[in-house]
């Protein structure tokens, strides 16, 4: 039997593809526009011919990395990478530890801890900006990248609920068996929980990396000295006539994240969903 041609189904397929194409265009176009602007020979926004530059050149990229007395991009990039990488490691460790603990142990203040986290979560992050600035001055952590790392790590510790949701899905029978075998809780965590939660760890690490990588508010508040600036602060300090510098600088920020996300998209989808789903 041959498959019959069904107009309704064909129409639906066409519609789906049309929609998908449209959506893809909406998402891709600004990105393409930004990338091409980076190659604009003239360097500023208004020299675009319609949407795209008249002449293309690599000049912007040369300037981005050489004119360091105007914008010390290599340094900003190094700072950002340092902050993001270190906070990623610390945050992942903290978040996983907290989430595991809250999910696995039953102790008296457990529920009040979770409720407190929820309430704290309502506070917008930078409502505390002034206070954070004062605290950081008292700790002598202004202009200090470690200060930022501390803030990101402690901030991310609050976001353990997704990971906790994931750990909830690991059946407790596994734990019971291991505990009967005489393994200490610490060993159980290392040898059983961690290997089981690879997608979750990847997800956590990724989100923990991206926040400091892309954040603007905290560094703009706490980094006074230009040599300690991160890319977000630096790029935002540029004049608007430097649009192609902005675009070029942005590329180096966005591309690694995009590559990471695309490569790890499986974990991202699994991880996010696992944490959110309530059984």
């Amino acid at each position: 039997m041959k498959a019959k041609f069904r107009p309704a189904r064909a129409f639906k397929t066409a519609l789906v593809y049309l929609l998908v194409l449209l959506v893809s265009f909406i998402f891709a176009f600004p990105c393409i526009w930004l990338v091409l602007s980076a190659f604009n020979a003239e360097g500023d926004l208004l020299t675009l011919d319609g949407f795209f530059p008249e002449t293309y050149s690599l000049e912007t990229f040369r300037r981005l990395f050489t004119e360091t007395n105007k914008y010390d991009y290599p340094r900003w990039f190094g700072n950002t990478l340092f902050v993001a990488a270190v906070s990623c490691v610390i945050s992942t460790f903290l978040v996983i530890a907290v989430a595991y603990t809250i999910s696995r142990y039953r102790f008296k203040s457990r529920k009040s801890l979770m409720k407190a986290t929820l309430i704290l979560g309502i506070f917008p992050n930078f409502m505390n900006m002034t206070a954070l600035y004062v605290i950081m001055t008292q700790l002598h952590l202004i202009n200090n990248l470690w200060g930022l790392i501390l803030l990101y790590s402690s901030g991310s510790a609050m976001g353990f609920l997704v990971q906790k949701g994931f750990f909830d899905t690991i059946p407790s029978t596994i734990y019971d068996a291991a505990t009967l075998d005489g393994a200490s809780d610490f060993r159980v965590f290392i040898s059983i929980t961690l290997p089981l939660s690879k997608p979750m760890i990847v997800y956590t690490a990724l989100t923990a990396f991206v926040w400091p990588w892309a954040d603007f508010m905290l560094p703009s508040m706490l980094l006074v000295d230009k040599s300690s600036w991160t890319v977000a602060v630096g790029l935002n300090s540029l004049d608007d006539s430097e649009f192609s510098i902005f675009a070029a600088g942005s590329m180096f920020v966005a591309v690694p994240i995009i590559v990471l996300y695309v490569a790890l998209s499986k974990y991202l989808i699994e991880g996010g969903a696992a944490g959110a789903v309530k059984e």
Partner: protein
Amino acid sequence: MKAKTFGLCLMAALAALTLTACGERTGGGTFTYEELMAKFEGDIEENAVIRVLDNQMAVETGHLQEVLDAFNERYAEYNVQAVDANMDQYVDLEQNGPDGYGPDVLYQANDMLMRYAEGGHILPLPTEELDIAEIPSSVMDAYKLETYGLDLYYAMPVAQQSTVLTYRKDLLPENWEEEWDDNENGVPDMVETMNGLYAYSKQVKESSSGSKYGLYMSLVDQYFNTGYLLSYGAYVFGETHDDIGLAADGAEVGLNLFRDLAGVLGSTCISQNATTQAATYLTNSAGTAFCTIGTPDWLTTFRENLAATYVRGGMSEAEATAAAEENLVVVAPPRLPTDGDITKELTDIEGETFAPTTMGGVNAFGISAYTKYPKASLAFVKFVSEYENLRWRCEALGAVPARLDLAEELGGVSEMLSERVASGLVYMMPSTRDTQYIWDPLSSLFNDVATDNTTRNTPIYTTEEALKGALEKLVSDIRSAMAVGNIS
């Protein structure tokens, strides 16, 4: 149990009360001139590290680094290290200073520096040690503040900031001598009067269908545009700060002039970016803009950009530099029509126009009160205000010196602006904390009025009353901002 809790609360409340009561506060006391200046006496500190905050141009052109090197070399025996503070040029000393993150020496305009002076964040300087004989007293007064009953000066003025017009000679129409020089004085009308500039801008815009500009500048820049109000009788503060004169009689004429101007510049100029955009437009190969109105030190940037454009066009480095220098001309801001109507054609230029008043300021070096090395910082301020070093700075950065003798020697723009200052055509922005409250409302006003004649579908500022109303609102906004600043 309840009684116990209650008792504890009562005790805590009582303790709190007594604690608050015993907090008798003591003021700072009063000091004599000698006491205030004692910190500057003696040899400069050994191994001092002083962070110097200069403006962005000085940093970008490398001038600051050269000055720092020269200074460090001169004071090598003390092992002084003057370094670039490496902060944003508008960094707030009030916020960063008390915690020790501010610069030691800072170069800012008089409204900022004197705001710090009023808050006690910068040091009064020993004027007897500074070379101020050649600086006009009107300029020095911008840095005077009565403290402990003494007239103290808080910074060393270096450069005048005022408004000039910069245009590109090669973009003048070929026949300008016949068509655009009604009074036959050899100065093109479009850079001599606002009426000429208006007419020319309109012509350029229409003939290029909007892709080119005659005048290109930011319509929301408070600093430059306030000049139109000041020229027709407005002032910022009167005897007291309760008297805000920005809505004084005549100001609406200036505002209407501004509105007409906005109409020809268009909505792309309603943006702070337009200020930096001008540097590109004035110097690109297409010649997008014919002229701009700004501060004199921009000339350095314009020349660099234009030279770069010429190099890209195939000229050699030296030719390009010479051509750029030749091509960019700086003149005084255009004369304004007495009746405020820039749309009409003038018949008698001298009789129908007058030289405008513009907002001005003085940039100076001040010393943070939180510096650990007041003597080394003072040494640096003295160093940069030496005659030779001032000339160095002015030449490198295109700054207009505050010193009269230097202005005379440099001639050109410097001399022209000094004359304008001397004849009272430069309105010094008030050196007081309250000045900070005028900028945002002014910016909003200019935004509002410029939008009215560009992108607004139903314009509202078409009558004198409406314009007056906008100015009244401006004053009341400034008043509210001041009131809130004082309550909080």
